[in-house]
């Protein structure tokens, strides 16, 4: 049994839902934490365990607002892990706001760098204008 990781978003870290039983895998919000290793290592270990006995399909949804460079490295580590387990029918969905070129470009770059089923999905977030950078 692999228990879920569920973390609420904070001022510097994204919301995390890694729930095998309900087949939900999500990383949403901003990842600008200085000590990203401490935050991401448990997530990476979780996926390592998960891929030993994965569900029939795995869709990881990312909906990122901001990403600092050390968090970028850890996202890449997660993608590499998905790549290593590509036979398990897994997929990445990278969501970005229609007006957010920077996050779109980040997604395109990851897509280019990985041999993954990597979908870029444009969203229109109506709350976006009110987005408050409250860290």
């Amino acid at each position, binding site marked *: 049994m692999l228990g879920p990781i569920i973390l609420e978003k904070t001022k510097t870290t994204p919301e995390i839902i890694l729930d095998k039983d309900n087949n939900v895998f999500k990383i949403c919000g901003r990842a*600008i934490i*200085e000590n990203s*290793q401490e935050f991401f290592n448990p997530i990476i270990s979780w996926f390592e365990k998960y891929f030993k006995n994965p569900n029939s399909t795995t869709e990881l949804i990312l909906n990122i607002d901001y990403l600092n460079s050390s968090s970028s490295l850890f996202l890449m*580590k997660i993608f590499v892990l998905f790549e290593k387990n590509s036979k398990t029918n897994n997929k990445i969905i990278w969501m970005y706001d229609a007006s957010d070129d920077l996050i779109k470009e980040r997604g395109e*770059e990851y897509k280019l760098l990985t041999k993954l089923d990597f979908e870029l999905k444009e969203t229109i977030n109506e709350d976006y204008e009110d987005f408050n*950078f409250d*860290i």
Partner: protein
Amino acid sequence: MTTKTIYDFYKLLENDNISFSYRGGFTNNVLTTATQLFKENIGEEHSKLKNKLSFLMIESFQNISRYSEQEGNDILEDTSEFFMTRNVGDTFYIISANLIDNDKIPTVKEKLERVNTLDKSELNKLYREVLTNKQISEKGGAGLGFIEMVRKTKGKLPFDFVKVDEKQSMFFMQIELKNPKVDDGLEPLPLSDAKFVQEIVADENILMMHKGDFSKEAVGPMLRMVEENMQNVSLKVHKKIFHFLVEILQNISKHAYPINEKREGIFQIGFDDNKFHIGTGNFIAKDEVANLKNQIEMVNSKTKEELNELYRKYLREGKSTKTGSAGLGLIDLARETTDKINFEFIEINNNYSFFSLTVNF
């Protein structure tokens, strides 16, 4: 904004334990974050002044909106509203500047001169009179704000009017709050110091400036304030600036050379020639200068295409953690800025140098 002006500003504010200045539209959110920035970053010895300081900052902000003739336009001008708070020695200063119609000057001047000459009991008497008479002037308030400021600070309110044209002047006012528990023996800073700062931030088109200890939690409030100031900027530019602000400010908090356990730094954001400029300055250990210089020169020598390749290579190889992530951030910065990264090292002594950096978006 040049790397040289960053250092000049740093020198100008060298004795400030913390200082913050802001130009542009004043909203309640700006006020909230400004008070927060200060509350979170003032020294232990002054913690008892926190509430008074917040109160005075609010009064000062309200005073700007009460007497200001600014017409909510988005373009920054030399006469844009200006607000500054600073702590030097044991005294806190709150400075405001805004446009005022020349024909209103005599009334404001009279109110200020009156509160500046009264003693404590006379002030209390006046306070009660004003409250009971309900002589509310057309802009709301019969100088009650001024009376409160003087009562709270037990000091004077230095002020000045600088003529702009036949119709308007800039109205400068300074609130001084001294910590009664400690005596630094320093003379209070004259209002002319603040006028000088206002003049040069206007000349240099600086929207916001902060000098202080970057190891503390100053980054969040600063970013929120920038966001307030950028309501009208396209989301694309806006996000890019934020993205790199986080990166640059975190870098300072991590790598700045600690002096007396403080990671002193200065941060500015400006707008000029249709570009945003971010400028930072901080001390770095002398033995790190050569390496940092090499890294910046390396990224500056590459084309955007080469930088993209390098970034992807580093990202893919997971060059971690200590040297790697700093390198990745720098490459990322170089590929997104519109011009090369400008930088300068000024040798201070055998242990450390001053490192300043400016980038444009």
